[in-house]
């Protein structure tokens, strides 16, 4: 574990979602949401190869997509997805990072309205959102939302190589059931993979297609110059109706309630892992194009043509295991599929539809990951399996035990287990990339003080001060090995709101400082060299209260502390602040 990056959840260790600067990152149309349920990280790509610039990740509960910088290893942007619920078939990236997609798992009235739940069928929709990525800075914008029938859109992957320009989404609950789904959503023998020609829709939109409709969704961005996040509430989104773009969307019948929807590195094979099916469905992109040309359709669903199963299907892998969930690929023509029920990873040849090897995992594996798995060029030496259940494997730790991950060498004919380790739950999905690419991208080591544009930042100890503005007290504070400036503050009163604006003056690699204050109803701050961060404190009792450095910064870390004197409400004591008995910046030369 090299680094934990908070994205959708508050992280008291780093102060993320607690500091005044980062709170806007967690703003949504529903107000401040302190947590998230993230699922699928995916790394940006250039020409079908992971480039290590950004990681995108989805949040399921309050539909959002985030972008993380692999230079600073911090969350730089979060955008909410309107008209969606259960943002699950997300956040996969096209092969030149043109788009990151967000698909709806729980169809809902679109737009939301007061209506009987039992009237769901035909009245709910599932939005598939295409977020354009600005190639230079990575900023996201919802370019268009496709208003699809009210199925559940479970997982997705982009076409690549020959199928670049298409996107594939697995669906379940094509029954459109609204209750006891475990039974009622499993009635149809086949559900669909939705094939979307996004290039065609992009063209349609560029020519003025689609309709701007009212919506409310937050777009939160981080600014590395001011060290501050901004949240903007957006008011409309461009919606595309499938019927208005004929020839852009098709349904491919796929074995019962598919979960994973995976595309091999050549872009030819689209694999639906029917989690309840006895067989795995392998579709052919070439056959799909031919079937569209021949109009080999088997009716339609809400006006979207359903391609005849035999006209699109390359073949099926029969009885490979129980409960297939996800498939990733090597560059040698093989797929690796996880089986939740039979707790195993199965290696199979796509062309021959033959099983080559199987390896048990402990237990009940969900996703697996091969570095660059969602690309034309998987780095296919290793594979990681992420397991949901460990039961008897490790120390019993109360009613819930840890989850686990297992690392395999897949360079040979047989998969070889290299490492097996417990991990925090749930290890849902992972994205992998060669460490060399990250190192070459030259991750940030410090934030330059000269570039610090935080309105409450200081460039030196001489600038540190305390300013009263009515009931607000602003402390412009600095930290350097191993003291705060100022470190003695008086004149604060009960009922004040005290802002600690703290700048880490260090310009040395790996020297963060922390700060926390007794009685502050927030977390500590962990402040990187050159950065300014703010927390608030509303003292409720008179006294002399200490603050201190919360990160083991240096040999004199224990000495890095200070005091604030709090006087009664009506006190006339003026604000004063010192370091070693002098006002900072006014020491005698």
């Amino acid at each position, binding site marked *: 574990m090299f680094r934990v990056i908070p994205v959708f959840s508050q992280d008291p260790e780093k102060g993320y979602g607690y500091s005044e600067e980062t709170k806007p990152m967690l703003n949504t149309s529903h107000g401040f949401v302190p947590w998230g*349920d993230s699922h699928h990280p995916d790394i940006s790509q250039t020409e079908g190869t992971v480039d290590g610039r950004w990681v995108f990740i989805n949040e399921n509960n309050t539909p959002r997509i985030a972008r993380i910088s692999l230079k600073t290893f911090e969350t730089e942007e979060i955008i909410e997805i309107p008209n969606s619920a259960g943002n699950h078939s997300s956040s996969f990236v096209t092969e030149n990072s043109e788009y990151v997609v967000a698909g709806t798992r729980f169809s809902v009235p679109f737009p939301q309205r007061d209506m009987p739940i039992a009237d769901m069928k035909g009245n709910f929709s599932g939005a598939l959102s295409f977020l354009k990525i600005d190639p230079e800075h990575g900023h996201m914008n919802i370019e268009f939302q496709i208003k699809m029938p009210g199925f559940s859109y479970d997982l997705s992957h982009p076409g690549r190589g020959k199928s670049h320009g298409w996107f594939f989404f697995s669906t379940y609950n094509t029954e459109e059931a609204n209750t006891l789904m475990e039974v009622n959503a499993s009635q149809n023998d086949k559900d669909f993979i939705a094939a979307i020609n996004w290039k065609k829709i992009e063209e349609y939109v560029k020519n003025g297609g689609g309709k701007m409709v009212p919506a409310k969704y937050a777009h939160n961005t981080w600014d590395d110059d001011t060290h501050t996040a901004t949240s903007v509430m957006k008011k409309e989104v461009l919606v595309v109706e499938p019927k208005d773009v004929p020839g852009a969307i098709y349904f491919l019948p796929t074995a019962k309630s598919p979960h994973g929807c995976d595309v091999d590195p050549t872009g030819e094979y689209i694999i639906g892992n029917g989690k309840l099916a006895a067989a795995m469905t392998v579709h052919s992109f070439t056959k799909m194009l031919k079937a569209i040309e021949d109009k080999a359709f088997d009716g339609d669903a809400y006006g979207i043509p359903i391609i005849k199963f035999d006209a699109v299907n390359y073949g099926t892998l029969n009885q490979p295991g129980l409960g297939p969930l996800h498939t990733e690929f090597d560059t040698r023509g093989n797929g690796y599929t996880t089986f939740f029920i039979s707790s195993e990873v199965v290696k199979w040849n796509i062309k021959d539809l033959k099983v080559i090897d199987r390896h048990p995992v402990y237990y009940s594996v969900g996703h697996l990951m091969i570095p660059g798995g969602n690309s034309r060029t998987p780095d296919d030496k290793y594979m990681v399996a992420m397991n949901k259940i460990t039961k008897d494997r490790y120390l019993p730790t109360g009613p*819930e035990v840890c989850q686990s991950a297992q690392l395999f060498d897949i360079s040979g004919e047989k998969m070889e287990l290299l490492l097996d380790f417990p991990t925090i739950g749930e290890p849902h999905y992972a994205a992998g*990339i060669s460490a060399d690419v990250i190192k070459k991208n030259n991750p940030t080591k410090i934030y330059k003080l000269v570039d610090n544009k935080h309105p409450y930042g200081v460039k030196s100890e001489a600038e540190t001060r305390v300013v009263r503005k009515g009931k607000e007290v602003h402390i412009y504070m600095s930290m350097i090995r191993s003291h705060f400036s100022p470190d003695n503050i008086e004149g604060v009163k009960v009922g004040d709101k005290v802002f600690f604006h703290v700048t880490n003056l260090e310009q040395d690699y790996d020297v963060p400082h922390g700060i926390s204050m007794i009685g502050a109803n927030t977390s500590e701050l962990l402040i990187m060299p050159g950065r300014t961060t703010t927390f608030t404190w509303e003292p409720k009792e008179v006294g002399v209260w200490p603050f201190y450095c919360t990160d083991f910064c240096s040999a004199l870390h224990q000495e890095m502390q200070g005091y604030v004197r709090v006087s009664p409400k009506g006190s006339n004591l003026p604000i004063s602040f010192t370091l070693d008995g002098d006002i900072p910046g006014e020491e005698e030369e």
Partner: protein
Amino acid sequence: MKLKYILSAFVFVAFFSCKNDSEKKTNSNSTETKTVKNTHKGQASVELGEGEEPNVLQVAMTYKDKDGNKPFSTLVVAVQAAGVEDALVNTGPLTVFAPVNGAFDKLPEGTVETLLKPENKAKLGFILTNHVAPANYPIKQLKKEAKKGRKLYMASGKYLIVENKDGKMFVGGTEVLMSVKVSNGWIHVIGDVLVPEE
């Protein structure tokens, strides 16, 4: 799902090193059995990264005066002989009073040669640590120390007196000739070796 917790919102990104893999291949192809020495390297072996400021030791080793000479070459030799390199590179903060080469020449004849002998390693280390304060003392702070009559506590366990003589700073009786800010503290250049009393 019971497995979803707040922590699931943290990203799990894995990085794989290609280097390990190539090493592994080399080993498996080689018929010779290689004994890998477990050579412990201290923090002094961490190389200066791109865009990073050098630390006390890195400055002492590379600093050149206007004539192109390395004024701290004797000090560096002594530091290496005493095996105290790691103490000069850590996060500190450190304030080091660095004697120039000429300072060692002022010692009685043969002193340096004797101290560099392996059997005198501990004694040499004691003398060198008398030049290191585990604290952050820029000149401004040294002036303050002098004004308030505070002594400097050195890593040797001894104390040094700080004096301000008409704006010139003296430590342990010798003048601070020049000061250099380094990544883990300050180097103050001096013209004498601060030999501690036993």
